[in-house]
């Protein structure tokens, strides 16, 4: 198919733009873009794509951006786009895809994830929220936690236990839960920064039609692993330029404030710069591997390093600022959609970064995954299955 080249796709975008005014109705434009297969070009036709190679998505996005077309504000629906969509594409029925994928991509419907539970933690499969069949519905009771976007979401991907008698990894089913359904209660969860990105979600007698079940009953754990892999391997939109992340904030501060410099901090800044640049090149190499069709396990390394670096660099910045590092900007309880790691104070960065080694798989869990799946080291003795 000649469309499946960069030039072919640019031509398609150009043709689309001739038919649709990028300055016109935003939602209409986005829906049409989805219908034209230019949303996720690697999706099959009819599901927002053209069956094209994944790495050509950037070509399409660039072409739309150059034309000044509205985008789908991907950061406002990160769970939907990054986790729900790949899972639905792979495991959901045709009817489910038809119902959910387009409004998800356009951003009309925000999604969240109801996996984590207070007592489960890293041992996600020990979750206790239960779903009991009742006619054509399931009735769900339980408590979820660490749910970002729950207060904005229309839909949630949900794991619930449907067979308490089965071994813990085999009694779980994957659902899509309507966040506006009766019995869904969302409470903000205040975090160390004073704000609340996350929520606790209480599910009390929530009815989910069986048509909102994804995959077979009892197959939820296998499906969830698809989702979680997407969470861990996702490495954002574009390659990071040198000094693109927090290390850039630190480097600029060092350059602009000679009064703060000491010999000891100089070495720490240089160490951080070296480590950040090494991590950046490793992430770039991972992109090149993916583009070459050789996705490797390096995504876990990227996430581990990101957490370690963001913590180390922000901690160093607080110390480099010295007296200024003793000051925060604001402890007010707020509801941000995503962390503002580059915009606020060093103290905010430092505190928020503590979560980077906990959320989306703790660094401890990631190390064990690397040891077992990449290095082939034996699992620890299991006492829970």
């Amino acid at each position, binding site marked *: 198919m000649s469309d499946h080249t960069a030039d072919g796709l640019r031509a398609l975008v150009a043709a689309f733009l001739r038919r649709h005014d990028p300055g016109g109705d935003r939602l209409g434009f986005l829906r049409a873009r989805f219908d034209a297969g230019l949303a996720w070009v690697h999706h099959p036709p009819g599901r927002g794509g053209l069956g094209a190679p994944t790495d050509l998505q950037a070509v399409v996005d660039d072409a739309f951006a150059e034309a000044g077309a509205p985008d789908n504000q991907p950061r406002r629906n990160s769970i939907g786009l990054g986790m729900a969509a790949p899972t639905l594409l792979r495991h959901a029925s045709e009817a489910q895809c038809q119902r959910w994928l387009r409004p998800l991509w356009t951003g009309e419907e925000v999604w969240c994830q109801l996996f984590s539970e207070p007592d489960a933690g890293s041992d996600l499969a020990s979750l206790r929220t239960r779903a009991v069949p009742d006619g054509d519905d399931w009735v769900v009771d339980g408590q979820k936690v660490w749910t970002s976007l729950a207060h904005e979401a229309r839909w949630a991907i949900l794991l619930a236990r449907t067979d308490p008698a089965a071994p813990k990894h085999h009694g779980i089913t994957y659902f899509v839960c309507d966040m506006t359904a009766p019995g869904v209660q969302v409470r903000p969860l205040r*975090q160390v920064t004073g704000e609340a990105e996350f929520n606790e979600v209480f599910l009390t007698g929530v009815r989910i039609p069986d048509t909102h079940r994804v995959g077979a009953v009892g197959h939820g754990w296998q499906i969830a692993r698809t989702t979680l892999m997407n969470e861990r391997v996702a490495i954002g939109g574009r390659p990071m330029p040198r000094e693109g992340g927090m290390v850039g904030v630190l480097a600029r501060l060092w350059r602009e404030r000679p009064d703060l410099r000491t010999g*000891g901090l100089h070495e720490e800044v240089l160490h951080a710069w070296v480590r950040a640049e090494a991590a950046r090149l490793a992430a770039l190499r991972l992109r090149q591997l993916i583009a070459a069709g050789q996705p490797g396990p390096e995504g876990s390394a990227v996430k581990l390093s990101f957490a370690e670096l963001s913590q180390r660099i922000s901690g160093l910045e*607080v110390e480099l600022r010295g007296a200024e590092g003793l*000051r925060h900007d604001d402890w007010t309880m707020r509801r941000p959609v995503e962390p503002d790691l580059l915009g606020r104070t060093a103290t905010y960065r430092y505190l928020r970064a503590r979560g980077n080694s906990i959320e989306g798989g*703790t660094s401890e869990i990631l190390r064990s995954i690397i040891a077992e799946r990449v290095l082939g080291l034996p699992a620890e003795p299991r006492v829970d299955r």
Partner: protein
Amino acid sequence: MTELLYDADEEALRGSVRALLVAHAPWQRVLAAVDGGESYDETLWRLLVDQIGVTGLAVPVEHGGAGAGFREVAVVLEELGRAVAPVPFLGAVVATRALLACGESTLLRQVAAAARDVALAVGLATAPDAAPGPVTVGPGPTLSGRVPGVADTAPNGLLLVPAGDGLYAVDAAEPAVRRHSVVSLDGTRPLVDIEFVAAPARPVAVGPAADTAVTAALTAGAALLASEQVGIAQWCLDTTVAYVRQRHQFGRPVGSFQAVKHRLADLWVELTEARAVARHAADRLDAASSEAALAAALAQAYCGPVAVRAAEACVQLHGGLGFTWEHPAHLYLKRAKSAAIAFGTADRHRAALARLVDLPAPGTVDDVTAGHTGR
């Protein structure tokens, strides 16, 4: 010879302070005070002053104090760190050290009698070897200038202000003394910016004596803060150990996983060393030893980072729970990180050590032949 253990009197003092803090400063109360944007906990402070007599500990008997000394002060600070108690004790001790250096008997008697809160009006981040601050003297016996980020001050207390070549006493209640509130990283040790607008002042020391007094005070602050840091680290270790013993994952206590065990074992080793370092620093202060400066620099080069690592491990090993506002871990994290800057960051203290023990930086004085390895 440095004495690194706790003696019986010190253990008794610890017991009294801890009992008072358990009764009157549970973390929920500390969090509520921090969240309410209050300054320090006045009620708790009065209890410590009245029931334990903490302000008199470092004041010799001849000036009306208990004559106990800085080793006892350090034990109190361990307990205050352990409870992240929002009281101005460290600042009071630092000011007391300055008054001792000046031989200011009248003020020392007021301090010992708890008649007056006294604080040194310098930024909390000030290292013992820092250059003079921004306050100027005149016209006449008045002070002007702004001192940012001062801890442990009371609106009606007394301020000791380094200015020009002297050290001055200023009544904080004077209208010419203005307090500007600050959003502090560590709400348990709230800071204010203090502005002097031709504020009436009385000199308590001038010339080298003033400089000596301020350096002695800041050295005491650096040395004694280490005991607070030991208390912070001890709480973080104890609390984390208790949590991972009861928290189960994958059918086992989290504390049975080797990576968790080894991280906590390493932390215990660091804490063991930090305790010895902090005791040494307190001991050398009491001994008025020439080693006080060295012991204080070592204390802040070592103990500050240990407390930060302990608090960071506490957050991490509590998982999501440790990242929430409703768990006390963040109070300790903020206190530890703030304390790592107080009285100078670790790197400044390493630089001070380099001078004190003759490990010069490249390019300094005797380093005339330095250069690259030849080709």
